[in-house]
């Protein structure tokens, strides 16, 4: 069974890039455009990995991460944050909230694939 990944970003371009890269590598990608929608989708199903942007309307990626970690089925699910270089303080915040890793925007599709492959393997 293909591993299921939840891609959370308010930018349709980023979601498109993530979906394009990962579905080609055989993963099943579900998109959500903000933290609240992601939480809804995450609660309704199960995912092997959550990739989330930080700065989003309605609910930020950090808040989503905290809420996910509070759900029993997501306590150990890898959550990778997608950040930009200007948000180094956010990275720390994300780590404290329980993020598994991060990817810096902009990234190459192969970088994303490498991180995802690794996180899902370990």
């Amino acid at each position, binding site marked *: 069974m293909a591993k299921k990944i939840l891609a959370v970003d308010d930018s349709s*371009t980023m979601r498109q890039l993530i979906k394009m890269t990962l579905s080609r590598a055989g993963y099943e990608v579900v998109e959500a455009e903000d933290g609240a929608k992601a939480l809804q989708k995450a609660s309704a199903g199960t995912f092997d990995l959550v990739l989330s942007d930080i700065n989003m309307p309605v609910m930020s990626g950090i808040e989503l991460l905290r809420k996910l970690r509070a759900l029993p089925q997501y306590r150990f699910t*890898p959550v990778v944050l997608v950040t*930009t270089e200007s948000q180094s303080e956010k*990275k720390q915040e994300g780590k404290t909230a329980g993020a598994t890793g991060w990817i*810096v925007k*902009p990234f190459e599709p192969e970088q994303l694939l*490498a991180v995802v492959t690794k996180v899902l393997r370990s």
Partner: protein
Amino acid sequence: MELGDLEQLQAGFRHEAEDLLTDLGAALLLLELDPHNAEVVNRVFRAMHTLKGSGASAGFRRLANFVHHVEEVFNRIRNKKLQATPELIDATLKACDCCALLLGLGSTDDDTPLPLETEVLAALRPFLPEMDKATGKAQAATVAASVAARYKIGFRPNREIFFSGTDPASLLLELTDLGEMEIHCDTADLLAADPFDPEQCYLRWEVFLDTKQAEQAVRAVFQFVEDDCDVSIEHEEPAASARAESKAARFRGATQQAFSALGFALEQFQSGDENLGLATAHRAAQTLISACKAHGHSGATIAARKVLEAVLAQQVGTLDGGWLTKVKLLIEAARLAVDSPTVAEIVTSPPRGTAVAAEISTAPEAATAAASIRVDSVKLDALMRLAGELLVARGALPAFADRVEHIAGEESSKSMAKEMRDAGAKVSRLADDLQATVMSIRMMPVRQVFQRFPRLVRDIARNLDKNIELHVSGEETELDKTVIDAIGDPLTHIIRNAADHGIESKADRVEKGKSAIGRIDLSAYTRGSNVVIEVKDDGKGLDAEKLKRRAVEKGLLTEAAVAAMDEEAAFKIILVAGFSTVDKVTDLSGRGVGMDVVRNSVEALHGAIRIQSEIGKGTSFRIELPASMLVSKGIRVAVSGHEVVLPISTIREMVKIPKSVVRSVQGQPIAPVRGTVFPLLWLAHALSFERMEERRAELAVAIIDAASGPYGLVVDHFLGEVEVVVKPLNGVLAKVPEYVGAAIMGDGKTVLVVNTERLFALQRSLLTAHNDRLVALPG
């Protein structure tokens, strides 16, 4: 990523960026009204942030770099270190315009700054903190090397680092984004390891990084792994030797290393360690890509990507016997690409003029606008469902045919006929719904056009030191995409005219006892199958007598002609080409071009304009347009034994009048209809048909609301209302102005649709040419 993917991604980003820029513009106007609203500041910041991040990801590097500076400014506003002043909003709005230009440039490698880019960055510089001014300047004037710093980074991961899911190589890769670097790997521990544990990390690295980024950015790379490794970052004066080492030599060194790693990987693969070999190849290919990218060698980057793609394909398990040969060829190709000079090195790009830059920047945008249409997914779902149902319903028909064949004798043909009729009715109902849905996909809310006007009005008001409020309503009203695309320009002219000439200066308004704040109302609403767009200002209004005088002075109309005009006809003088009521040519309007564009565009859309105005109270422009260009209602009429269609949108009413009331004034037949006198035009004559002898005492007349004024169109008979799909004419017929297109009737017959909007004006201009004299606009 494949090339088609990148194009798709870029097209997607263009759409997203357009939305973001629109939202940004709207948010900035809100921010100007309420500079301390944190929610709005955040909205602005987020839009910029997305524009930057997604732009960079989709390959719009220049756009991302530019937005970065603007984002810095708003980061300071967000942190309350700066206030959103009108000057700052001005500069930021210009920055949005600049973003649109850069978006048009796409993923270019050309770094020549656009004039607007330089202007905006200069305007923003006072708002940037000291540290960023340096980079800002570097961006604008391409003073590069002066601010670069060299860091010596010691990176010693803990042995157990792999257990936290961290790959040291990914950190090193991340560092390559910051600048150029030289990496030394210390393998002493690895060689000394006994016994060797493959799950431990024995390597240490020393990195020399040349970067323009602040130390903080370097530190941020290691932030997540601080606990899992020992990192030291020292600022270093660039050594003379390091400087002497040319960029090209470093590139050669890096690529050579990557190639030998690839060779090693293939050996591993061949000797049976397939997974290990592939992993090594994967990493080596990644290194090669980064090296080529850092060197700005796009040809080699593409070649290196192909190697990585081949490795990835093999890794995900699509085992291919010929893979080894293929990948070896790809590696050879990459080696050749690396050895060939970069494009930038051979072609010295000539300095480019502003005009050329602007041309290039608009072209791709126009192309995307024409080629794609964004659709609400709900509408698409409905379409899919209908198509499915239609297929099912259609499937029932052959089954019926079978039954008719086999059991024709047993079942009464009457009941079968009924069933078939029911099935047919269902198919046609579905087809109707399907058509309606397809049509609705073409329908878009006028918001798409309206959203540009708050900015326009604000800019004009600021330029002319006026206070103007724009009130918008009915943004949800839907119009066909063709109409939406075409209505922007005429509306811009009308609104600009209202803000510039309609609304008086603050002092004048107060003197007249009006509020100092002028008001423009922009509204849209549906009326039958048409959509009305109205622009109303509370300014000084149009002076019919003055307009008439001016038209005569300019030699556009004769004394006699203007004397016969009623008020509305006089107002419409402002739509005539070459007419302008303002002596002083302002920056914004008043050049006498523009308002005639309004008339032409609206006519081209088969719409009609009405102008109402009262001196001292204001002016209103009312544009009525067919909501959809595809299916429209028409009136079938008979004329000289032919059948044609008149578009219903231009018909005010249809009447029968006694022939005896027709009079002739200076050769122009006229007739009164309910107290108003209309000029008459015989359709047969206008279309050059043979006019039949009229024995009837009554004339069938359609009163047409043309932009040039109403007139009566005399036909033989009205045959009834019809819904038609109008197709534009092609070939020879396309140039015949008397027709707008051909209508396909329900029975498949094709009938020509008359251009009632222009028919009268066409006849008049023929007459004018004949008689060589000025003729009045009909009033």
